[in-house]
Structure formats: structure tokens, C-alpha cells
């Protein structure tokens, strides 16, 4: 999603943190200095610099608490994957053409997606360091050292699209949608009612949740009271622990609820799987200790339901019974519930429906790798939200704004796939279909998917 993240103090311009996506050429110090310089110059003149689009990049600036400036550099949407050979054209003209062609898609995708990313990154910093240390720091070196602990989570934002290619991980959309990724399983209700609540209570907390491979399976009622960003960040944090970590106990600051006072995030791995497995988390006070929880409660609360927990470790985020109801042309979908800040994503496993249309699959499945689908789903989301669908966080503004036109569906047909997005009450559904799907059928299909998903109150 982004290539570089720079964090600079607003007053002195001291770089606190610079992270780059692996494979991208690192940014030189003068360049960082210039980016900071123009922003500061603008703010001294009473103008706040928001964003800039260049032929290759988009850059956004955002100031937090008047002390930290985040600069996010992302690739331009129109950027060609490879430099195309320029033939027989004068230099100025080829540059001119490049300028023209770079203006196309980029200008229609709003900057807000990158601002969201910047917000996520800032909140991640707050979560790990606390607002006081971040904003009112005393020693820059101390802060820099403290920020090192956040490299891992920031890198995960930068690598979100490459992570899939590496280890076939299920991608998370939390940073894009500012909602928490959830997994749906029939066991969830039972586990929450019978075990999770009791477990949290025993640990002296109202906040507890079960996470499967980075997705939230179930959580206590209080946990759901956290806002979408916090939920998404906590899940991301938990999913970042390597599978070998079986228990951890770290202080976290909740960016919106308690940015200054830390809580303990206690995480225990119940079932180990290559992608993270099933983990139970509680947010609690100083008592009880990790050892105490681990030894006293884990076995007693979770031992009896190991089989149920095993059953939750499905490769897909929705139960097979539901998946079988989905249309066969569906490649992937992303369902966002903007009211309760949850999102559910699903990728049709390659070759999953080979019995029905084996021939088609043989031709096309190889094209639709999950990472490609993920890229397309993200691209579609960015094209739709902010253009025809409102941003959930801005919705209060737009409702006052007297715009009587509200987008309720949006589709795009591209060279290799088709996408359809639908809004219904609090749901936003983004679906990807194969190229063979008739355009006119997409609305019906998408409505059917939404109906299937909302029928059992899955979210």
C-alpha cells in the first residue's frame, strides 16, 4: 500500500523513524528534509500541505498533536509496472506523455485512503509507546529507541500486499477499512458464551477475545466497545507474533480510550498453527500475572474445548456450509459492517469448485492467484469508497451536507475480472467475479451473497 513512512518532529524536523518497504530504494536524507521543509514552510505561511501527486508517487503529510508529522509515500496508481522503452520521441515529448498518462486514475482516487494509513500508523505508535512519550518527549534519543519496538507493526502496514506472496497468509483488510477482520464459525457463539467470558472474568478483565490467524473469532461485549481502529490494531498486533510465541504480556495504550494509561495485553496461544493458530487475549490490569493465568486458567477453561477450537482452524474465514451457497463465479469478497466496525473477507480457494467446471478452472484459476485477487480487491475498494460510497468516518459531515445523491452500487468490468460493490443498510459488500460473469447478473449475485451472509447474523 505504501512504500515509505517517515515520522518527523514537527518543530525541529528531526527524523524519528523512517521505514521503507523492502525492495524500494531508500530515501535520501536531503529528500526527507525537503519533504519536511515544504510542509513546515506551508504551515508557517498559514497553509497546511495535504498531499502531492507525482508521476511515480503520492505523498501525504499529516500533523498529529502539533508535534509529530507523518509523511507517507505510496506508489502512484497509474504507475506502469515497468519502464516502457521510449522510441524515437523527443525527450520533452515523452515526458509530456508520461505526465498526461499519469494523471488518469490517480486523480480520481481520493487521498483519504492514505490518510487512513497515516492514522493507523500513528495510532500504532501511540498503542506501543503511549501518547505522552510520543508527543511530549524529553529526549529524542530515548524516543527513537522506544520507537524501535514499533518497526515490526509499521513494516506490516508497508508489506501488507507482499505478505501474501511470501507465506500464503490470509491478508487482513483492517488497515484499509479501519474495521477489524473477523472470522465466522459456528463454534464462535458457544466458545464466547461458555468459555471466553468466564476466562476473562477469572483474569479480572471485561476485555477478552479469541483470534484465529489474525482474525477475530469472538470477543466479549466490552471488547466490541473499542472503536474500529483499536480493534483492527489489536488484532494486527496479535497476529504479528510469530507462531512460536505461545504467551506474551505487553503494555498497550488504547489510542482513543486510554492513550496515556497502559493496559496489559496478555496473549496465550491455545493451538499452534503455521499462520498463528488460535490465540486468546485479555486486556487486564496489573493482576494476575502471566504465569498465574497460564497455569491456573488455560487448562481449566480451554482444555475441555480443544476439539471445538481445532474445528475453528479452517482455511477460510467462513464456514463451508455458507461458502457452498456462494455463486460459483465469485472470486473473492469483502464485507464491511460500518456500524459495528467489522469486516469479513473471503477468497475462493483455487480449484475449490473444480468439479463443476473443471475446464474453466484449468484455464483461469492459474491467473487468479490470491495475491492478485487481494491487489484487485484493494484497488476496487479504493476506487469505490470516497468516489461513490462515503467514508464511514466522514459520514457525519456528508449527511449534513445537502447531497441528495447516495451511491448504493458500483461496478467495474476490467480486462480479467469484474467487480461489484453494494451498500445495504450498514453493510458494504465488495465482490470480485471472474471475467465470464455476465455484467447484468452481478447485481443479483451480489445481493444473493449479501443475503446469504446476513441471514444467519454471521457478523
Amino acid at each position: 500500500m505504501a512504500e515509505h513512512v517517515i515520522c518527523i518532529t514537527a518543530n525541529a524536523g528531526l527524523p524519528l523513524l523512517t521505514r521503507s518497504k523492502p525492495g524500494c530504494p531508500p530515501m535520501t536524507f536531503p529528500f526527507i528534509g525537503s519533504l519536511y521543509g515544504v510542509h513546515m514552510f506551508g504551515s508557517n505561511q498559514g497553509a497546511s500541505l495535504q498531499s502531492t501527486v507525482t508521476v511515480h508517487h503520492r505523498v501525504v503529510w499529516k500533523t498529529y498533536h502539533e508535534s509529530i508529522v507523518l509523511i507517507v509515500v505510496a506508489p502512484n496508481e497509474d504507475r506502469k509496472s515497468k519502464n516502457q522503452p521510449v522510441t524515437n520521441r523527443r525527450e520533452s515529448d515523452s515526458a509530456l506523455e508520461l505526465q498526461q498518462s499519469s494523471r488518469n486514475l490517480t486523480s480520481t482516487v481520493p487521498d483519504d485512503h492514505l490518510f487512513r494509513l497515516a492514522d493507523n500508523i500513528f495510532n500504532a505508535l501511540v498503542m506501543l509507546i503511549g501518547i505522552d512519550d510520543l508527543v511530549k518527549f524529553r529526549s529524542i534519543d530515548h524516543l527513537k529507541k522506544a520507537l524501535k519496538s514499533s518497526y515490526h507493526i509499521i513494516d506490516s502496514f508497508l508489506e501488507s500486499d507482499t505478505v501474501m506472496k511470501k507465506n500464503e497468509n490470509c491478508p487482513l483488510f483492517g488497515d484499509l477499512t479501519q474495521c477489524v477482520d473477523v472470522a465466522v464459525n459456528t463454534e464462535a457463539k458457544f466458545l464466547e458464551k461458555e468459555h471466553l467470558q468466564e476466562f476473562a472474568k477469572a483474569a479480572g478483565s471485561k476485555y477478552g477475545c479469541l483470534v484465529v490467524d489474525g482474525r477475530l473469532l469472538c470477543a466479549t461485549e466490552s471488547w466490541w466497545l473499542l472503536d474500529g481502529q483499536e480493534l483492527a490494531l489489536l488484532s494486527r498486533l496479535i497476529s504479528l507474533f510469530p507462531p512460536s510465541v505461545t504467551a506474551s504480556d505487553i503494555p498497550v495504550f488504547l489510542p482513543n480510550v486510554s492513550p496515556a494509561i497502559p493496559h496489559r495485553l496478555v496473549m496465550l496461544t491455545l493451538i499452534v498453527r503455521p499462520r498463528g493458530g488460535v490465540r486468546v487475549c485479555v486486556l487486564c490490569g496489573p493482576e494476575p500475572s502471566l504465569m498465574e493465568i497460564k497455569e491456573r486458567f488455560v487448562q481449566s477453561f480451554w482444555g475441555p474445548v480443544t476439539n471445538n477450537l481445532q474445528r475453528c482452524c479452517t482455511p477460510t474465514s467462513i464456514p463451508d456450509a455458507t461458502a457452498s451457497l456462494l455463486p460459483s463465479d465469485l472470486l473473492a469478497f469483502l464485507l464491511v459492517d460500518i456500524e459495528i466496525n467489522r469486516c469479513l473477507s473471503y477468497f475462493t480457494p483455487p480449484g475449490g469448485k473444480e468439479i463443476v467446471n473443471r475446464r474453466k478452472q484449468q484455464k483461469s484459476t492459474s491467473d487468479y492467484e490470491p495475491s492478485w485477487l487481494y491487489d484487485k480487491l484493494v484497488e476496487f475498494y479504493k476506487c469505490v469508497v470516497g468516489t461513490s460510497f462515503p467514508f464511514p468516518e466522514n459520514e457525519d459531515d456528508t449527511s449534513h451536507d445537502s447531497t441528495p445523491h447516495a451511491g448504493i452500487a458500483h461496478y467495474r468490468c476490467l480486462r480479467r475480472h469484474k467487480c461489484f460493490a453494494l451498500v445495504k443498510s450498514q453493510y458494504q459488500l465488495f465482490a470480485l467475479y471472474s471475467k465470464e460473469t455476465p455484467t447484468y447478473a452481478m447485481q443479483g449475485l451480489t445481493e444473493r451473497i449479501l443475503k446469504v451472509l446476513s441471514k444467519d447474523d454471521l457478523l
Partner: protein
Amino acid sequence: MADASAQQNRAFLYTQMQRNRGLKAARQFALEEYEGSDNSDDSYSDSEYTTSSGDSNPWEGEDLNAGELLYEDEPEVDSDKEVPKLNEHREDPSDENVKTYKNARPKPLTATGTSSLKVVEVRVNAALSYSGRQISLSHNLLASMLGIVMVDTSGKGKKNEKVVVDLLIPGGVALRSGQINLGDVLIAINDVCVTARNIEKFLKSIIRPMVLKITLQTFSDKPMLQNKLPFQSKPPSVTARECEVKVLNPHPGRLKQLYSLPGPHGVFFLTLNLRSETASEDDDLLYSYPHSGLLHETPSKLSQLRGIFVTLADVMKQMQSSEVLSTTLIINGQLVHCAYHQVKTEVFVICVPDVAYSLPQVHKTVSAAVRLLNIMYGSLLSAFQPENKHRLDQIFQHLLLVNSSAVEVTKKLPASTSYKIPSVRKLKLPTDLQGNVDAALAELEASDFDDGTKAVNFTRRLYTVRGSCIFYDGYLLANHLPEEDLYDVFLYCYNSGLLGIREKERSGLLLNWREVFCWKNRFESAEKNIYKEPSGRYFWLIIGLKRSILCVLLKLNGNLFPSSHTPRPDSNYVNYAKAALMNLDSCNFYDYVQQRLSTISTPYLVPAGDYLSKQSSFFKSNKPPSGQGSTPGKGFKLNFNSPLKLKSATSDSDDGRRASPSRLSQSSAGKSPVASNAVEAQTPKSSVKRLFREKSFSSQGSSESMGSGKTTKRKGTNLGMENVQNALTTVGDEHCYTQLTAGNENSLFCYLDLDPLRGVFITPTEFDLSAVDSESHQAIVTSFKKYALILHQRMSRKNPNGDYCIEEGILFKFQSSKHQQKKNSPYLQYWIVGRAMRSPVEKEFYVCFHNSAPQTMVELAFKSGFEF
């Protein structure tokens, strides 16, 4: 005596040749007479001349500002002078159709002997005639000094052989005077008798720059000239001044009243290459609009912020080898977009507030501005020279206004500017009208072949006509230019406010003449096989009369003039163009167009308000596909509609037949009063018919009436040509009612048909929209315009490796603002869909329709192909 008969023979020959020219010649000839003798005052050399007869064109006296002539008659002052003159034109050529011309012609022939004398004064500079390469010609001073060539060398030895003008050298003094014609005989210079014998000797004696009074014997048959022959010596400049001409200049008052953009805006041209030690504060600012330096007040916020633009541009270029495209800022709580264009070390920036411009719009505007400046001045660097400042202010003032979509501004702007798609809006004309206007343009373009029409003047023309196009009220009527050149012309006219920005009709003449640097010539084609045009200089001749504007692209071949010099408009071309416009006027073409603009055109739109009011019943009866798990058979509906498609095809071919040759020639040549009367007589009748048709097909496509229309046509085809025409004028004037959308009811709210190959787009006319006008419909159309631009922007992303978008659609739910408070207020759902087709021809198509019946875009676009 023998000499005299030789003269007569020669004159006869010329006249004979002239007689063989057709109708065009006659018309132009007549026109020339009314125009009076024209003189192309050329500031090129220091040779100048004054004519002693005839009044000049009023614009001749105007200065050429930075290579551009922008001239406009002030309608109020000029109306009493100009209008009658126009009327004369209108009537006169119509009197003179082919027959009368032929009858009239022989008469002067018999009177060839009645020669007449005329006096032309030319200014010559003898020194120039000897200089440079022309030194070799010094034995032929007649050619080098006066630009006259006498071919007849056989008579060299003869005494008293007269000096006959056999050839005129292009650019020579004689040709530019416009008074000396082929076949004339030089009698005397400065009242000294000259012959072939003594002419060289005489010219040798002229060593200082001086005015020569040349007396010529002419065998012209123009009665007018004879009247004028007596030596009148009224300087033409006086008559020009009397016309109260007024150069178009920026009217600061007028546009300020019109509106200025809300919020901060500005245009800057900044340089990155500045020596810091010697530079003063404002040295990096090569140009700015609005001016900051003038008033010595606090410079505008944006101009203070220009450091950001410069730095960003520099940093991105130096360190990322990338170029900056746009920046978004918040100034005083207002979102401001700035778009850049970088040329080497200079940056061109346009800053506009978000309320007036969306981000894609700013990008489009900056591309357009860069192209426009390149067309006008060759490059951005030469555009932003200090001497152009005034002109640039004017351009940017218009440009920022016409491209904005701020509500306050668009209300005051003509409706034609409301689509921000970078293409030309075309008016779909009935085939016969289209044929007429195309014929008129073709005729104009052909006029550079027969240049000798005016008197007997067989010289090469300076220019060749590359093409022309005609606009009416902001609509493109016809175009004979390649699409890149068309877009060049359009950009210029659009952004100079020539296209219908004024409310009242232009009664005087608008003349715009300037050198252009065609955009397509900037790009050298990669393929070597493609034909490359020889280099040359291009000029625009833009003539406006009443509500129409005719643009002609002229090419000056070779390197006749040094590049620093811009020749003045050639009065021949101006007159041809004017004649073309007036010819169209004389056959009531504009009335037809006006009538076309005030009738509803297919495909018909349906008012959105209808759906809003009949909401409840509508949804019960015709439920859109929803959670039923299946879509109500789209495919079946299409099948039911297929006869409709067929019908549109037949009506199309019938249209083509209707533009029968006889009618076409009648109205294109349309000079006879009978013909024009007939045309006039038809006008009300057909308008009544059209009105009737509208009523009968108001909103429902009743299949019965369509069927009847079809059978009549079928009958017509079996009969002869005449009958077909009769049948068609009675019945066939009605287009078949065609409904673009599928389903029982028409559900089309708005459409836009973009043809990138021809560079034009077609939308409903203002009348179409006003017919379905309502608050809700307006709101929907506004939203359509906005999103069509976004969709267009996304479609135009051409990435051969990656994905590209073929079709994109958005479904909106619209609630009328009146009912917004109430909970269960009526609403309607409409689609805005765009589709790009790459085969068989490249085309983009945008529609806005109600969500009642499912549509397939392929079929809609296919149908629209038959429509247009």
C-alpha cells in the same frame, strides 16, 4: 495596331479562361466587387503601398499584436453600417446563379476593347532589390523591384513593345498591392511612359526608397472598377477608422461582473534556475495571474506559497527523477488543488479551490492550458514572454472560468461549457443539413485551387487550406480537420470565450488570425512509413458572424517569410470564409439549425420527476432485481426489443436516401430566389410536423405508429426517386421513435456519446434537457456530468501490461431535497454507467438511466451507434 490586336487577343484569352470557371468563381467575383478591391497590407518588407481606389476592409488597419489579429466589429456602432452590407451580400450572390452568370459573361467579352486606366501607388526600396541573392536578377529589375515578370521575350528586340504583366512574383510588391492583375499593361511609372525597352533603364534610375505611381491599362470587365477609376486619393486608413473598429481586449469589467472564482486561485510560471546571490525576491516569478506586484499590496497567499511549488518540483526531479503533478493544500480552511506542468527548469502551476474544481478537473485543465499555450506560442517558454503578458491574462481569466464547475460560475456560463470532457460537443444534424454544411466547407477548402477568379491573377497562393470546421452556438456542426487539429481549434475558441459566451448575437464581424503550432506536429511519429507532411507554418483564420464561427487552418508552404514575421491575413481567404458563412446564412441554414436546436432529438429523455412521483406504484409493478436470488430475465427483454433495433437501422438508411442530390445541390448552391423561397416555405411546415410528432410520441413508444411509418417507407422504396422524396417529405420527416433503453418504458435521463477518433461527443441539447426540466432532473444531470468525468478519467487509463477498465457503473439513490426531511419520502434510483469500446472502433459511451429495467451497455451503445 498590330500591338493593340495582340493585346486584345491576350486579354481575350484571359477572359475566356475566366469564363470557364464555374459558379464559385461568380460568387466570389461578386463578393470581391462588394468588398471593393482588397489590399493586403503586408508589414513584411519596407516596401509599402497605398491604393488609390476602393475602400479597404476595416480590419486592415488593425495592428498585429504578437502575431495575432483579434478584431471585432462593435455591434452597436457598426450595426447600421455592417448589417445592410451583409444583406447586400446575402441577396446578391443569390441573384447570380449559374444561368444569369453565363448570360452576363459574354457581354464584357465583346467590350474587351474598352480598356481602362488605373493608377496604383507602390512603395519600393531599390536597395533591397539589389541585395542578397537577388543580385543575379539585377538585370531584371522589373521582377526584383516590382515583382512583375514579363514572359514574352520574343519581342525583346522590338521597339515599343508594351510591358505586359504575365506573372506576379509571390510576395512581390505588385502582388501584394492587389491592384495589379495579370494581363494588365504597364503604361507609365511616375507619369513616364515605359516600354519593354526602357523599363529596366528606368528602374535602374530609382535608387532611393520611394513611392512609384504606376499607371496600368487594364482590360477588366468590371463595371465597378471603371466607376472607381478616376483618381480618388482618399487614404484607406481614414475609412477604416470611421468604422469604429475595436480590438478585442480583456474586458476586466465585464468578466468581473460575470464572476470570479470563489476562493484562492492563481496561475504561476516559476523558474527553478535562479542564482540565489543575485536574485531579488520576485525573480523566480516569471508570470503570475492575478497580479500581485501591480498594486504593491500584500501579495496573494498562493504567491507567497510558491516556494512549495518550486521546491517540490525541484526535489522530485532531482532526487526521484519524477515529475510533480499536483498538490493539495488547505488555505484558510479551504481546500485548494494545484496542478503542475514542468518544462525543464520551469514550472507552470494552476491553483484553484476545491469548490470550483475537482482534482481530475484540475489535471484536465492544466493539460488543456499547456496544450493551448503550446499551440499558440510554440512552447511554454515563448508563451511566458513579457510581451504576451496582457494576452495571457486574458486567456487565463477565461480559462479558469470556463473550466470550473462552481455553481455560481456555471450559472452564468453558457450551457455548452458544462461538460468538462475534453472533447468537442457536436450537434447531431439531419443528414441533408449535414450534407449542406459539409458541402459549404468543402467548397471553401477547394477555393485555394482556383485562385485566379478575381480578375486575372494566375499566381501561386501563399496558403493552402488544410481544413476547416464550423461551430454554432458552441456546438460543432461540421468538421473537416483531423481530430488533433480540431481539438486545437476547439481549445482555443473554448478558452477564449469565442464559443457562445456572449448572450447577444454578434452582428458584426469577428476576425481572428494567428499563427499556430499544431499539437500533432510536436510528436514525431515513431513509424517511418507514415506520411510526413512537409514542414511549413500554420495559421488559423477564425471568422465569426452572428452565432456561427468558422475556423480555417491554413498552411504557409516553404519559408517565404522569416519566422519572426507574421504575415497579415490574406483578404482573399477572409473573404472566402466570410462568403462561406454568408452563403449558409442565405439558404437559411442557421434557421434550420436553430430549429434543430429547438426540437427534441432522439433518443428521447424522460423527466426524472415522473419516476419520483409515480414511485410507489412503479416499484410494485416493476420491481428491480433484488434478493430473489435471480435476476428477472434480462435476456428475454432484449429479444423483445430487437425489432426496434432493426427499425432504427432502416430509418437510418432512409435518412441517407433523403438527402438526395437534387435537394442537396439546391440548398448548397441555393442561390436562386426560388430555391430559398421554397426552403423558407418548408420551414414552418416541417416544424409543425415535428411538433406534432413530439406530441404523438410523447413518452411511450407505441409500436403501432412505428409500424405504420415503416410500411409507408417500404412503399416508397419501390417507387421512383421523385416519389420517394415526396413520400419522405410527408412521412419520412419523422424519425422513427427510438428508445435507447431496454424495458417497456423509456428510462433514459441523460447520455453522452464520445467518439475519441473524431474527437467529438454528442449529448442532449439544451432544449432536450429543458423539455424534461425539473429540479430533480437537473440534480441528476449535474451528478451525471460529475461522475461521467470521473469515469472517463478512469477509462482513459491505458496500460497495455496491466488491467484496464471496460465498463464502470454507479447506482445512486436520489432523494429530492424538498422531501429530505421526511422519512419515507419518494426516491428514485438511477445508474450512471460508462463503457469504453475498443473494437471495432474506439468509442466511449456514458448513460444515465433509471433502475427500472436492467440494461446491457453493449446493446445501448450499439443502438446509439444507429442513432448517431
